[in-house]
């Protein structure tokens, strides 16, 4: 049995060994995650090995908005959202549903936030390769928003999530 603890990132968490295979995400964890958190720019949540406090997966959430330019949507010109900015799973712990667990947590944390300051969407960016996986193969409530060069932006409607929990 491998016991894990879910916790906010803090200075006691061992992050040096973490490698998710994406250098940008590794660098973020090593150089910016704690700094951003201390500056209240983003919040990082982790799964750590309970016996050693070593991080094996994490996600980062922050508040953001979609700008509607000159137009309006529901009478407003900025849609408040939660951005799932980073999610990384250590290579030694891939394919163990840690990513799904973290998305579940992102939904709950976003819902919690929406009850206090209001935010409508949880936004993620994935590769074009994974776009069809999230939109067609799994039923996690993802909806398509926009493609970029090699990626796709998807969202989950937090209102819809809240309405369907009972």
């Amino acid at each position, binding site marked *: 049995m491998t016991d894990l603890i879910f916790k906010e990132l803090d200075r006691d968490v061992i992050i040096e060994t973490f490698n998710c295979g994406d250098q940008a995400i590794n660098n973020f964890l090593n150089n910016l995650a704690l700094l951003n958190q201390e500056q209240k720019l983003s919040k990082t949540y982790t799964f750590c090995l309970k016996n050693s406090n070593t991080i094996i997966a994490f996600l980062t959430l922050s508040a*953001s908005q979609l700008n509607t330019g000159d137009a309006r949507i529901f009478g407003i010109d900025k849609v408040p959202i939660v951005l799932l900015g980073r999610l990384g799973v250590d290579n030694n712990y891939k394919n163990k549903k840690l990513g799904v667990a973290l998305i579940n947590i992102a939904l709950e944390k976003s819902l919690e936030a929406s009850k206090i300051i209001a935010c409508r969407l949880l936004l993620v960016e994935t590769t074009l390769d994974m776009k069809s996986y999230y939109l067609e193969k799994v039923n996690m409530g993802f909806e398509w928003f926009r493609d970029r060069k090699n990626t796709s932006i998807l969202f989950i409607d937090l209102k819809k999530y809240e309405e369907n929990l009972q």
Partner: protein
Amino acid sequence: MMTTPKEKEVKKEEKVSEENFFFDDSEEIILTEQEIQDLEKKLENREIDDKTRSYFKSSHQFFKRLEENEYSISLEEIEKL
């Protein structure tokens, strides 16, 4: 969220592996007129399929169990998700 220029550069060179997410927040997202119309339709549509509803419920229950267990969980339990 702060993103360093180096981070952005590294990002371009690396292929994101399947379980990772990286949001490029270096540019503000400004919706086009078409995107506004599409988004409004999607947000007004309250229909949801049974599989997604089931996922939403299981996601919520997973977090409740995590809270009840004081945020301790085994990797084996997560694998059952």
